[in-house]
């Protein structure tokens, strides 16, 4: 966290000049008592103050990464001062409702946040022994999520999207509608933007305003025109504040991080500038560990009431889910919500792909005592049937839908209904979990009951063909 400029004079030594400047990197020679990851201030001859962070330190030189970029710096016109601490963010409850830049400086014209409580933005790893296992179902009001890929409090569930897909709208709808079943307490929302465009940030701010949640939102904006290395700190600022709200103040926090692909690109930029050995697609070999240091800051702990639920958003370059950014993210997060271009083209919103989407924690947050007894089996059966739909469609493409057997035709009808009626819903439509589950059964009732291998007889008896539309379709579909 940068200090106000007047403090510069009362700190230790200043080092004049730089021996090497290369992209965002800035090398100072013959430095004493500087630690790894320490923060420095670099003042140029215009008196402009920039912030640097130590990437490598030896008894000969210090390599700094300059967050505001090195434009205008020369080998001679700078003075560098080391602040003796790593990056810190002052935290206090009255930061709620404020807007900050990517480095935690006010953007809303308000005062600098004042607090004696200044936190290291790198955080500390949560002891797995002290974690509380996430179990409370969050109702997002979206059937594709609640019914099939349920989100639980303390989970990290990213949205994998592509350019031009409505991930922002889906995320905004989740923020608007997310709530617990039996608890009126609302989420505090932390929004961190890394390299996104102004209009995207505006879209979210407007959405927060319209739904009247702005007083519960904190924004950290490092927009597309901000220096790219700044983005490496933005999510850490956001998560540091989230930890304060959740684990000191007992709030339930929902953190949106967008767009993680931009974050990873900044990481690659720094890695390349340092001449590191690149891993896949030029991303540094430590991309996994670095991403984990962000995503693993979600969760709950035994000793505090609050929770951090993370919804990172990332765009998959050329919709490629095996690209290193979505791939490594998927290995760390507890599932993924994948948006599908094909569904978008067919006008289905939210275009949440049925099969590749997954919530790993769903098994522990739904079913008896959480949502409804039939929920796990219903979801499993819907997945299995929808997988068959995909196979039948492949076959229909070859032989023509008319040539399909009677059962396969039922599957096609089921697939169409599943996409048009179950997945598809309005942007303002907030379905409660019972509606979603009943709708799921209505879809299954389009298929003969012998096809439902994954549901116990008792549940079939209770729910199969119980809705009027479903019953009609089921009897019509028997032969």
């Amino acid at each position, binding site marked *: 966290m940068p200090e106000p400029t007047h403090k510069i004079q009362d700190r230790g030594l200043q080092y004049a000049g730089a021996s090497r400047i290369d992209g965002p990197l800035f090398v100072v020679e013959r430095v004493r008592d500087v630690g*790894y990851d320490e923060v420095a201030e670099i003042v140029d001859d215009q008196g402009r103050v920039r912030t640097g962070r130590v990437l490598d*330190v030896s*008894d000969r030189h210090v390599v700094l990464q300059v967050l505001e970029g090195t434009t205008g710096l020369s080998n001679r016109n700078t003075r560098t001062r080391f602040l003796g601490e790593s990056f810190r963010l002052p935290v206090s409850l009255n930061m709620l409702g404020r807007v900050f830049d990517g480095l935690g400086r006010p953007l809303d014209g308000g005062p600098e946040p004042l607090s004696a409580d200044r936190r290291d933005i790198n955080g500390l790893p949560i002891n*797995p022994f002290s974690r509380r296992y*996430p179990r409370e179902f969050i109702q997002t009001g979206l059937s594709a999520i609640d019914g099939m890929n349920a989100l639980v409090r303390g989970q990290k569930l990213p949205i994998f999207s592509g350019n031009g897909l409505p991930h922002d709208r889906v995320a905004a709808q989740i923020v608007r509608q997310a709530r617990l079943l039996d608890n009126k307490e609302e989420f505090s929302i932390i929004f961190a933007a890394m390299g996104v465009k102004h209009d995207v940030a505006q879209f979210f701010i407007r959405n927060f305003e319209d739904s009247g949640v702005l007083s519960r939102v904190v924004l950290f904006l490092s927009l597309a025109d901000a220096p790219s290395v700044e983005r490496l700190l933005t999510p850490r600022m956001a998560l540091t504040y989230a930890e304060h709200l959740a684990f000191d103040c007992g709030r339930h926090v929902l953190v949106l991080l967008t767009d993680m692909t931009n974050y990873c690109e900044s990481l690659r930029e720094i890695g390349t500038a340092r001449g590191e050995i690149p891993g896949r697609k030029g991303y540094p070999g430590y991309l996994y560990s670095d991403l*984990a*240091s962000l995503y693993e800051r979600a969760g709950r702990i035994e000793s505090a009431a609050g929770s951090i639920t993370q919804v990172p958003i990332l765009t998959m370059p050329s919709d490629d889910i095996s690209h290193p950014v979505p791939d490594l993210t998927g290995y760390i997060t507890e599932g993924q919500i994948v948006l599908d271009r094909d569904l978008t083209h067919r006008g289905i919103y939210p275009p949440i792909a049925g*099969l590749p989407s997954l919530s790993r924690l769903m098994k522990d947050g739904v079913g008896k005592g959480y949502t409804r007894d039939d929920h796990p089996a219903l979801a499993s059966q819907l997945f299995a049937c929808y997988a068959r739909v995909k196979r039948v469609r492949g076959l229909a493409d*070859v032989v023509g839908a008319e040539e399909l057997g009677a059962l396969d035709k039922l599957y096609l009808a089921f697939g169409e209904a599943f996409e048009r009626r179950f997945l598809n819903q309005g942007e303002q439509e907030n379905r409660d979990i019972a509606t979603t589950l009943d709708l799921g059964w209505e879809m299954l009732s389009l298929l003969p009951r012998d096809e439902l291998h994954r549901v116990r007889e008792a549940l079939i008896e209770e729910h199969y063909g119980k809705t009027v539309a479903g019953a009609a379709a089921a009897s019509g579909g028997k032969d």
Partner: protein
Amino acid sequence: MKSPATVSGPVVTRVSGPIVQARGMEAARMYEVVHVGEGGLAGEVVKLDAGRATIQVYEDTTLLAPGAPVQLSGMPLSVLLGPGLIGNIYDGIQRPLPGIAAQSGAWIRRGEKVPALDMSRRWSFVPKLAAGAEVTGGTIIGTVAETPVVEHRIMIPPDISGRLLSVVPAGEYTLEDPVAVVETPAGERTITMLQRWPVRVPRPVSERLRITEPLVTGQRIIDALFPIGKGGTAAIPGGFGTGKTITQHQLAKWSDADIIVYIGCGERGNEMTEVLREFPAILDPRSGRPLMDRTILIANTSNMPVAAREVSIYTGITLAEYYRDQGRSVAVFADSTSRWAEALRELAARLEEMPAEEGFPATLPTRLAQFYERAGSVATLSGERGAISIVGAVSPPGGDFSEPVTQHTQRFIRCFWALDTELANARHYPSIHWLRSYSGYAEDVAEWWERHAPDWSTLRAEALEILQREDRLQQIVKLVGPDVLPDSQRLILFIADMLKDGFLTQNAFDENDMFCTPVRQTALLRLIIGLYRRALTLIQSGAPLLRIQQLPAVPDLVRAKSVYGNDAVEGIERLKQELARQLEALAAEFKK
């Protein structure tokens, strides 16, 4: 942070993340543990060059500065071995996480120092030998009831042999209390219940034995189609979301090993928490005791320091070897070896080593081999039979098995359980693909199985053949649809589907289905293969497949796995008889 001039002895000269360089390290040895800086951050010497040492530090190095002092410990990185390991959860360098939580709360701070074992606790030691006995390394001199299911055998450390001068009487002792004195050629040596062993050195055994017994996992596709032997090695590769961790958890819960060592290496914190919360609550079907009574957890999650992740694998396997030496069958689960390989890569890059494939160090295959070779079925130093089975999860980027970690792992394992994204997408769990997986132990364990089920090998071969033929037929079906196939071929499709739904898929959350005894496994397989055999002859005598599919008992076959639990195998038998009755009635219709 002092200036270099004020400190004598070894000092830090460079800090780059977890890699630290120091000078004045002439006295240091390779892989010696050192403590860096005022906070005493633990690290290990990985390179020596004329008094300049490169140290990999197991903790976050933020604000560590050149000039900070370095202290040598004189010891290689070692683990403490003795009663109290079972039921514990450690980080990668054997610091107990409950102890850290008691000391510093929910977060792991730097420089935490908590002893791995409770030195003040008294254990009830029962001697097994009397003074005068000749002992060598590995000789069991007494026992301690570590948990209700684990009898901990106190052994003479591997490097000591001689004559027992004295043994303490049965009673309560701490780990550091002497329990025996051995007269060795080099003088008298005091034996305690505590041993120390360097993690990178395999503990000695007297002989390696052939693998003859399966590690029964209770998971049908594994036990019946791709079995692993006690002392065997297996890899579970799979893209994200294919269920590696759930499969590993299932194996750790239900495998019939005496001791389970579960290494969470660079994976999610919540998964370790899940194990911690779940295992004490689940009862082992064999002993009736909580699973935690036989389990040791190593958790170095993805956000914990990367150098400790590298070590966590060795820490885990060394604990396993210690119990193996007591004559136990130990199963080690490493989730995930890819994260471990990435830790190697990250450290190698910081050491500016020349990279080989995809940035991994050229030593990757050697390191993998060293790890998997610590598995095996052995005769211990004291002549008992012990085994370590290793199951390593692999997380190939993009789910592509041609990447270096998967490729090299395949060279050193004999059991390959390939997880498939498409199966996982259809929620077919475990998503082990029957055509891409293999097991080199099927022959070795066939004899054991056939003692329980004489037809095991034929059932297995037939099931595999049906699945293989189905795959070929599906190629045709994709082009022209299933309707053009003759009934005998559509029967293959039908039976293959039944095998998938009624046998290969197994619900980890269904009371009846999560664990399947060998008896029930063969009963279920016999049921389906039996239908296939009879249906084939029926079709040959002119009965249409549709009539067979419409038999009332057929849907029950698929549900049998969740309807009849391990204590209701006779239900499967009844179903088999009912099916046979219906098939014979059908046969009567088509008798020529």
